[in-house]
């Protein structure tokens, strides 16, 4: 259970804007273990998807620094030919929008077939077809023989996502990365897809990295959670700790801002200000500083680092100590914006 699968060390992924590089993922260190679901939570611009793409080596125009250790080698800087032996084979990925993730001009069966062919070129067409049908069955698609020859637009959103999942798990990957796998889907379908991912993980013992903005999904799925803000991880904990004893002000604010069953019609918590854009990130000091202005500057570390406050529970910066929300009244009166 606790066996390490992937170890990310000081990973920095930067994109070029104008003449400069800006880090979307900034010095992230993280491990993914076998047979666990690690959720990476954050809002848009937090760098969570950029992190997922970095692990898969899918950035074409980014500068990658640091290391991603998998199976004894650093895959962050592998030549394409070696990386291609891992991708689709030992590393599988599920995408957010199943319609655009599938080639519109290819029947879905061939799209699954392709990933098997790429990694098992010696298998006969007949064997591969058999595997594809089995996979379609495994991901819960009715009438697999018939579905094989359908085009993506002939399937519903939930069915398409099952095809994307079939592609990702075709070669029984050891690491499965799911990038917002249910954001484009209806609630009941979301549930089915999440159940499917969980079941596949349990059957194969793979490590799963689940990228999401939805704390509800996290609560349902994750074993451990990493919370990202502005390119950095601000808190890591197991799911129970995170939901009952979150420490970082950002994590606490996020948890406060979702509507809950008990408090209908009451005011939701609002985080002041907005997420700064990539070019305007404060690179010095605590990045969340500007959004909790009522906290004394001295509460922040000058160069915030991750502190292990309990075994397996890491929090960035010191501002979480003595953190409190401001008076509710005072906050609701003036909406903090611009």
């Amino acid at each position: 259970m606790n066996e390490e699968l992937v170890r990310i060390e000081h990973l920095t992924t930067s994109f070029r804007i104008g003449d400069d590089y800006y880090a979307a993922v900034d010095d992230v260190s993280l491990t993914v273990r076998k047979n666990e679901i690690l959720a990476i939570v954050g809002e848009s611009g937090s760098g969570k998807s950029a992190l997922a793409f970095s692990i898969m080596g899918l950035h074409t125009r980014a500068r990658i620094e640091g290391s991603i250790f998998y199976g004894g080698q650093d895959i962050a800087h592998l030549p394409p030919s070696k990386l291609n032996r891992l991708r689709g084979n030992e590393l599988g990925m599920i995408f957010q929008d199943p319609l655009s993730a599938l080639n519109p001009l290819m029947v879905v069966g061939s799209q699954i077939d392709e990933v098997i062919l790429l990694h098992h070129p010696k298998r006969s067409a007949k064997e591969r077809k058999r595997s594809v049908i089995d996979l379609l069955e495994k991901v819960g698609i009715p009438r697999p023989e018939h579905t094989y020859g359908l085009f993506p637009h002939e399937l519903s959103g939930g069915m398409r996502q099952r095809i994307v999942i079939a592609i990702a798990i075709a070669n029984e990957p050891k690491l499965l990365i799911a990038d917002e796998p249910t954001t484009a889907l209806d609630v009941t379908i979301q549930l089915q897809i999440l159940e499917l991912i969980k079941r596949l993980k349990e059957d194969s013992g793979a490590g799963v990295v689940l990228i999401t903005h939805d704390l509800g999904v996290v609560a349902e799925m994750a074993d451990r959670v990493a919370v990202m803000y502005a390119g950095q991880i601000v808190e890591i904990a197991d799911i129970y700790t995170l939901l009952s004893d979150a420490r970082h002000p950002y994590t606490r604010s996020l948890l406060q801002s979702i509507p809950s069953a008990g408090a209908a019609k009451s005011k939701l918590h609002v985080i002041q200000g907005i997420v700064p854009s990539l070019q305007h990130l404060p690179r010095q000091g605590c990045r969340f500083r500007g959004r909790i202005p009522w906290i004394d500057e001295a509460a922040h570390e000058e160069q915030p680092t991750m502190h292990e406050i309990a075994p397996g529970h890491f929090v960035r910066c010191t501002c979480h100590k003595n953190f409190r929300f401001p008076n509710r009244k005072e906050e609701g009166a003036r909406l903090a914006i611009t």
Partner: protein
Amino acid sequence: MWKTTARRMTIMVPQIVLLSILVFLLAKAMPGDALTGLLDPSIDPAALDEQRERLGLNNPWYVQYWDWAVKALHGDFGQSFRFKMPVSDLIGQRMTNTVWLSLLTLALTYLIAIPLGIISGRYHDTWADRAITGYTYLGFAAPLFIFALILLWVFGFHLGWFPTEGSVAPGTASGSLAYVMSKIYHILLPALSMALITTVTTVQYLRSEIIDTKQKDFIITARAKGASESRVYNRHILRNSLLPIAAFFGYEITGLIGGTVFIESIFSYPGMGQLFLSSISLRDFSVVTALVLLYGAASILGALLSDTILSFVDPRIRIK
């Protein structure tokens, strides 16, 4: 798919009828009629009128149109007053030349467009792409007839590499190998000069299709499967980008019609286009009418062809 094609074909019928009415009315609006050029001007006006009555030229326009349309359906477009022969025979002679010229132009167009478009799209923002894009802008800007004249002057007159007129060397026996070679030799320069200009649209189109497809999410899926860059290009990007180009094929025909009119005149190539221009300047209206009708029908057929190809290659359209 057959439904789509059948529907398109039913739409085509009224299109062609409408076209023929327009062409007919335009021809009617031209000064003079079939007798004006045919007869001696000193003839008695009463006799002329009698002739007109006999030929039905005094009937209301829709009766005349009906007679004309029925004849046209049987291939009878009347007489050319200049060549003193049936229009259909005249066009028949020229059509073969134009068809060969068009086919070679089409082939050259794609031979140039596909590699250039692929290089430009795949390596976009490199010097190669900039050079190709520069060429396409030049092609868009340069009028076809000036470009063709320059080629004719440089390679035809100045360097003397190619013949400057006709479709075959005089005196070669029809059917012999020398005849075929001479034919090819004669259409090479006109076809190339037309292809070099008309290809730029396709180059640009293919380039932007590739750049567009490159950024699609399913390309990321393909990379995540572990496909090599070359496979990503061949299997996913090129295939998906070339299909719309294939569908564009029918519309190329429309473009060719405009092109051959100029090219044939410049290279004095005896085809339909040259016939068209010279007939206009000599007011040989029965020929002009027949040619306009033919060109119009070809354009409509081209559009039909495009739609059919599109419904054939794109499954998303096929279903509807």
